């Protein structure tokens, strides 16, 4: 099996852009990704593409993949649309890795996009929560804020997690996002702000919820046979893991874990031959503050029930033992559904290539990205390693 390498990644700004189309946003991300390849890349070298999008707004429900790859001039390149809700482009990257490892392709584009700001608030509501279990979960009156709030209620009941601990996620991620020029909500917030915001779905308030966003992100994956042509400091995709689960939260055994994340994490760690201790940073799926806490536990960053204390301790701040969401996360950077998974990998690429600007961590060697669809119906985890990898004493 051939190794797969991340040779480029870039994104558009995330936010609300009335003057942009899904194609123009994708074009921006594509150009940024191509431009980030250290030794340059002729787009004609791309021989396969995977594009993630949920299709919010219904603007191009069929064939959205070719609609954007043809737009950026990838004439005739086979393109597959990947749909796994908010994990769409995380899975697109996984497909790219599979294409490379199998020998089907040498240079693969994997990206995603979403436009969520150009519909009326009524029409937008019809698209929120469409990845929840429709017949029962949605029709008990919930969208995802409600479902994650239910998870939070169970976690608080079982482990004593507090609203203040949830708010620490917002404070940290906003502090990080304030240093990210691509961030949608690039401002800092105080713990008081994050505690006092209006309730959306109790116990979650506005600062515990990510925004809706327009944006696109692209990554470029290459095989070991060609990677040297593109970079002298290759970043190996050392581990890939994925898992599915019942789409409705009520259909699961318990509500204080996301088993798909656990499964994805275990597989990725096993493939990479490392555990959470071997990571220098992580980008996790913080669509809601509770989701980041669940990710800490599901990915083994801390013990079960201790994520609230873990975030409050500062352990996941940039100067902590394991920086999480240096990009600002979905909370501050934004959450254009189909772009999110690839966008997390953009941050991993920037950190590992020393291109993270004010957010740059000190010489990180290994990072993890974690992308969840819905409330955990799908999850995908990647582990990236800058080569050559040397274990540093911790």
């Amino acid at each position, binding site marked *: 099996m051939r190794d797969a390498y991340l040779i480029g990644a870039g994104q558009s700004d995330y936010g609300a852009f009335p003057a942009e189309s899904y194609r123009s946003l994708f074009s921006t991300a594509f150009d940024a990704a191509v431009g980030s390849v250290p030794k340059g890349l002729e787009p004609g070298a791309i021989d396969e593409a995977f594009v993630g999008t949920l299709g919010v707004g219904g603007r191009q429900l069929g064939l959205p993949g070719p609609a954007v790859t043809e737009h950026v001039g990838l004439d005739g390149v086979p393109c597959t649309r990947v749909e796994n809700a908010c994990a769409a482009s995380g899975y697109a990257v996984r497909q790219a890795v599979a294409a490379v490892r199998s020998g089907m392709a040498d240079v693969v584009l994997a990206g995603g996009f979403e436009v969520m700001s150009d519909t009326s608030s009524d029409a937008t509501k019809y698209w929120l929560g469409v990845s929840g279990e*429709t017949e029962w979960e949605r*029709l*008990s*009156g*919930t969208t995802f804020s*409600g479902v994650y709030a*239910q998870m*939070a209620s169970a976690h608080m009941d079982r482990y004593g997690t507090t609203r203040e601990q949830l708010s620490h996620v917002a404070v940290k991620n906003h502090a990080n996002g304030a240093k990210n020029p691509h961030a949608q909500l690039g401002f800092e917030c105080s713990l008081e702000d994050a505690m006092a915001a209006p*309730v959306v779905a109790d116990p979650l308030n506005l600062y515990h919820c990510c925004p809706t966003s327009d944006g696109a992100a692209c990554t470029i994956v290459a095989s070991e046979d060609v990677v040297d042509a593109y970079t002298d400091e290759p970043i190996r995709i050392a581990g890939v893991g994925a898992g599915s689960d019942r789409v409705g939260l009520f259909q699961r055994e318990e*509500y204080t874990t996301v088993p798909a994340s656990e499964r994805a994490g275990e597989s990725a760690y096993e493939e990479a031959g490392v555990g959470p201790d071997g990571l220098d940073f992580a980008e996790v799926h913080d669509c809601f503050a509770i989701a980041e806490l669940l990710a800490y536990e599901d990915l083994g960053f801390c013990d079960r029930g201790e994520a609230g204390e873990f975030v409050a301790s500062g352990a996941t701040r940039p100067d902590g033992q394991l920086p999480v969401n240096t990009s600002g996360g979905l909370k501050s950077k934004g959450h254009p559904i189909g772009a999110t998974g690839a966008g997390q990998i953009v941050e991993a690429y920037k950190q590992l290539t020393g291109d993270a600007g004010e957010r740059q961590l000190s010489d990180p060697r290994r990072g993890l990205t974690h992308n969840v669809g819905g409330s955990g119906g799908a999850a995908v985890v990647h582990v990236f390693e800058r080569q050559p990898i040397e274990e540093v004493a911790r």
Partner: protein
Amino acid sequence: MSAIVGVGAYAPRFRISAEAFEEAWGRFDAAGVNGKAVPAADEDPLTMGYEAATRALEAAGVEGVDWLAFASTTPPMAEEDLTARLGAMLDLPEDVGRHVLTGSTRAGTRGIVAAADALAGGASRALVVVADAPRGEPDGEIDHAAGAGAAAFVLEADGPARIVDVAEHASPYPGSRFRGTGESTTDGLGVTRYDRRAFRETVGAAVDGLSVDPDAVAIQAPNGKLPYRAAGDLGVDAETIASVATVHELGDLGAASVPVTLARALADGHGSILAVAYGSGAGADALVVEADGPVSTALALDGDDPLGYAEYLRQRGVVTAGPPSGGGAYVSVPTWQRSIPQRYRLEAGRCPDCGALAFPPEGACPACGSREPFGAATLTGEGTIEAVTTISQGGAPPEFADLQSRAGDYAAAIVSLEGEDGGAVSAPAMGTDAEADAFAVGDRVEATIRRIYTQEGVTRYGFKIRPAE
């Protein structure tokens, strides 16, 4: 001969006082009404009828009937056989004889008379469900008086409360109270003396031929004064009417006015009851009920959640915008229809391999993954909250935007529902009948049926949860 063997009655929890109307309007036009019951945004005569009917069947200690009637002047659909849904909610056999009665405030007593006829004609057990929530223009007497309530009666050929005599009378009095085809509010010309004459003459004539000396009179009460004006015509004193009257605290119950009052008279243990219903147009029914022993009753007519006038207009949907337009997630009516056994009756499945419960009973077993067809299993409707949130403004799916603008925040929970034969299974459910913050992890709850949402003109009904009694 026919007899009432079980009685149920229900009124919504919300109440609005005459004073709240006076504050809003500077006056209150419903004479003799001190306050009235107001249906919640997720209630209508079908759900209120369900509430009364489950109580009547339980009071009677029976499950099945072979004859069903639903009566209301305000059925949620003007055209559609609502007894099909009601029968499914109550798990009645599909070959039950069914009747919908509407168009007059005496539709409820017409249902009781029709049940008596059916029993005489060979039916063995009848269920009459009467529910109403009249509506008028906000600035008129009809809306000021309009309350909400339901009563249900199980009848058999013989029993403790026999219907010993029945009479009716009609003569033309157009214009006293009417609602044109397609209109949503009831109106009247307000010719006071004419209206009063129509009422007194018609009910008097209906009772005329009966031989009865009642110790309680359940009489049509469009307001809290008119019944007493007819006392002389019925040959009774005011106390005989007042002792069982429901209009003073529940308001005008339309077709359910006399049935709910009759239910109260039976619950209070009266032995000789005269029930006199009036329908504008005008016609009247008179029934004599003789109870020679206690009748099993289950009444839920108390309510103590006060509404201000603005909240009243919201709950009733007078000042809200209705559902938004849009696309995205969508559950078609045929899809909903397939899930009716679960939505109405909590029919679950039991895995033949591992014994775990599954809800809804489809797909692989949630516990062991077996694909063997599930065996039948019923849930008790009682359970415990496992996870819960309060959905605030903006957090509701658009299907629920109208409900939320009318009723405000609501609880959305995952509840562990218990199986009749042991075990439990989780289901998502919306809270009702209590404020959103009345639901917390670990709380005991019970299921009832309410309106879920309306799309494409079709209302979806299904179970919700409320704090356990």
